[in-house]
């Protein structure tokens, strides 16, 4: 009893000392830990904010916050020393009478308060050259010039319409200044509404002119009265009021292909696996009656534009939904880039998985790739499992036999 008592007292003493040392270390290390935690949190927030910046802000503020045209630069010392509250309110609520819209969800925008505060952290502490790399890698650059060339044949056709010269001038201006946001033929994009639209045409010329002159506060639409002269704006009003007379295809979409980079393929892969793999198969091999994508017949015959259109608009009468409602153009192009990357290795004939649905119904779970070298860790693990289970059984059985005889 005495020996046990001594051992117990020693263990107790050691434990008590360990508690004191542990607490002491926590106390001594606390300021450093708090500093590290602050840095880590800031770094994460800036990282998140950079992705948001690339997607939402770089259109106007430039790929490294340098500002484009009348949009102010963000990489200034004045802004990085502005207090958080002012920056937060500017981003959350927008700025009246400028192209800066309100971004907060509460104000009808798309960002949560937390995301806005992350952007504030970026403006205050961000490294803009890193931001530029990210924006380029995510496929949001180059953004300028976002202009288009009017189709020459249709352009001359327009000239034959009543007041054709004015329309021609307007088309030229539209192709240079407006197409980036309002899209080909004025049909609208995710950034701005369609102008080639009966509802817009129903407005009086004065109303349309006022919108162009003054802009729409709280949206990306800036006032153009400082940039365009009165005559040009009048031409644009004419075009917008009479767009139904202009043949389709007058202003094509700006030809700015978004480059495929390693990062955009990675983005495409994660989006594909999250949204498309359930039906089209993890490797694009198709499932059941859902067509395969990773197959020569599809990839060779279908250009990127066509895939992009299928993804954006969906296919009527099939389970393929219109993803344009849920993803940005850049995201869809990243998916297209990922699908395109299969082309060099695509098989001539696809072998679809039996059907979609839960994992237990999918046949190709454990991919046994014979070209890979033997994975010795795997072999060791299997061997260990076999040895352990058979040893348990063997020892159990043999000792059981012996004891039964006793």
């Amino acid at each position, binding site marked *: 009893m005495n020996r046990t*008592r001594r051992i*117990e*007292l020693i*263990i*107790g003493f*050691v*434990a*008590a000392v*360990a*508690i004191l040392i*542990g*607490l002491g*270390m*926590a106390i001594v*290390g*606390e300021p450093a*830990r*708090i500093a590290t*935690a*602050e840095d880590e*949190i800031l770094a*994460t927030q800036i990282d*998140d904010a950079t992705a948001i910046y690339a997607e939402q802000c770089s259109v106007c503020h430039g790929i490294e916050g340098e500002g484009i045209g009348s949009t102010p630069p963000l990489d200034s010392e004045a802004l990085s020393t502005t207090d958080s509250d002012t920056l937060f309110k500017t981003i959350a609520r927008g700025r009246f009478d400028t192209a800066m819209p309100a971004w907060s969800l509460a104000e009808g925008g798309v960002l*949560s*308060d*937390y995301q806005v505060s992350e952007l504030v952290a970026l403006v205050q502490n961000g490294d803009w050259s890193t931001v530029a790399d990210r924006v380029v890698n995510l496929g949001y650059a180059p953004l300028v010039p976002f202009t288009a060339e009017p189709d020459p044949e249709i352009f001359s056709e327009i000239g034959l319409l009543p007041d054709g010269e004015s329309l021609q001038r307007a088309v030229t201006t539209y192709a240079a200044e407006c197409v980036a946001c309002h899209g080909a033929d004025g049909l609208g994009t995710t950034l701005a509404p369609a102008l080639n639209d009966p509802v817009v045409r129903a407005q009086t010329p004065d109303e349309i002119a006022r919108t162009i002159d003054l802009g729409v506060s709280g949206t990306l639409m800036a006032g153009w009265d400082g940039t365009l002269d009165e005559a040009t704006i009048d031409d644009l009003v004419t075009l917008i009021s009479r767009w139904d007379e202009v043949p389709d295809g007058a202003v094509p979409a700006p030809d700015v292909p978004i480059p495929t980079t390693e990062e955009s393929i990675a983005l495409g892969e*994660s989006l594909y*696996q*999250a949204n498309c*793999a359930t039906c089209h198969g*993890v490797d694009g091999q198709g499932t059941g009656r859902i067509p395969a994508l990773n197959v020569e017949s599809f990839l060779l015959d279908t250009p990127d534009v066509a895939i992009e259109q299928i993804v954006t608009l969906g296919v009527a009468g099939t389970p393929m939904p219109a993803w344009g409602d849920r993803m940005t153009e850049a995201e869809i192009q990243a998916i297209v880039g990922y699908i395109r990357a299969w082309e060099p290795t695509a098989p001539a004939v696809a072998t679809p998985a*039996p059907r979609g649905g*839960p*994992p*237990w*119904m999918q*046949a190709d*779970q*454990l991919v046994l790739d014979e070209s890979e070298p033997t*994975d010795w*860790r*795997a072999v060791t*693990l299997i061997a260990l*499992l*076999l040895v*352990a*289970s*058979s*040893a*348990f*059984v*063997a*020892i*159990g*059985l043999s*000792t*059981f036999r012996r*004891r*039964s005889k006793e």
Partner: protein
Amino acid sequence: MRRRATISPDTTNRTAAETGLDRARKRLKPPPVPTDDRARSRLVLDTMILHLHPARIPQRTLKWTYTWGLGGLAALLVTMLVTTGVLLLTNYTPTAPDAYLSILALRSNVWFGDLLRNVHHWSANLLIVVAVLHLLRVFFTGAYRPPREVNWIFGIVMLLLILGANFTGYLLPWDQLAFWAITVGTSLISYVPFIGGWLGSLLLGGPEVSGATLLNFYALHISFVPLSLFVLMALHFWRVRKDGGLTLPRAAGEAPVEKPRRVTTIPYLIRRETVWALSWIAIILTFSVFVSAPLEGIADPNLSPNPAKAPWYFMGLQELLLHFHPFVAAIVIPSLALAGIISLPFLDHLTDHEGIWFRSGRGRSLAMLAAGCSLALSSAWIVADDLFLDWAAWLGNWPTIISNGFIPLAIAVMVLALLDLWVDKGLDGTLEERVLFLFTFLAVSLVVLTIVGIFFRGPGMELMWPWSIASGH
């Protein structure tokens, strides 16, 4: 020496003139009154301890390798969780985005905030392990048989409450990990027959995990679950004493001890408990200084991680879901398991081998045999199901609840029945040995399922090697 002198000033010399009446009068006197502060505080402390523990305990029950101090450790962990939890309450906001911000603030603005969170997190996870080990200890030493069957049931309810406390606490940081683990975990509720949808929206406060869920879980986590746990803990401790203390450990083949030698609780038991508690506090504290509780980015309902996994203690269940129809995996099998575990003391009620690990030498061999069989069979089943078992395709015209639910379940039950038949007839096992075999088999299967679920499931819940998951290929 000095202490004794101060405690008992009353022991006057017994003189020859003392009569029997004097002696009786002396016995009726109240106990000696301590005269200094040290003695007074000691008396109060001792009295408090003796409210919880009996004054004397059988010396045998002090044996480390019998109880492993698991029940006491669980009680210690609950105490630590309450202490740290109450402190954490002062810095937590249970509303949707702010919850995450308050955790960030805890990390960056609060002195010892991280340490507090880490101790709470690791103690909570350890509590599950300890509670399960405690259950196994009680089962394998046969300490759940009458009259202890009531306490066995209290214990199982407490284990469920501990799981509930952990699960509700898991959501509170409101990070990606929390959000998706709870989304995966609560999605099973919809498979409860008839009332599943209603029950799900009651618990979640809506159709999906949201701010309302956070508030519900917060309320459950800080009031309902701990309060129920305290009541049951009190009952559990009371029943231990009511049932005559711990079962007496003995070696295989040793006859039951009629009159065990007893030692006083103070200091023999108390010293051990103190040493054990101090050691574990030291371990948890040191661990928490070095290893932080996980925290990912803020919860984003639009961005699901791949794979989305439930909390680790439910990974066995999630693994089961990959092999059976959800109704069978999430409702039928857990209900059967729970019913089985509750009915154990009524099936296996003979107290002959109480206090002997694995009942006997034969029992130890049988448990080992069961563990080996289970290790081999359950991993073989998991791999086979992944490679070629495809009930749904083979029985294409049947509803999947039959083809992929009850048919594989029936086959699994048949395998168990065959094994049981083998133990019964082939190995000439008694009832308690058959129960021991099946329990060990199923317990090891659960461990295998949990390990596979945690470590061997990669993106899309595909079967992968742990190192392939880590390297992202």
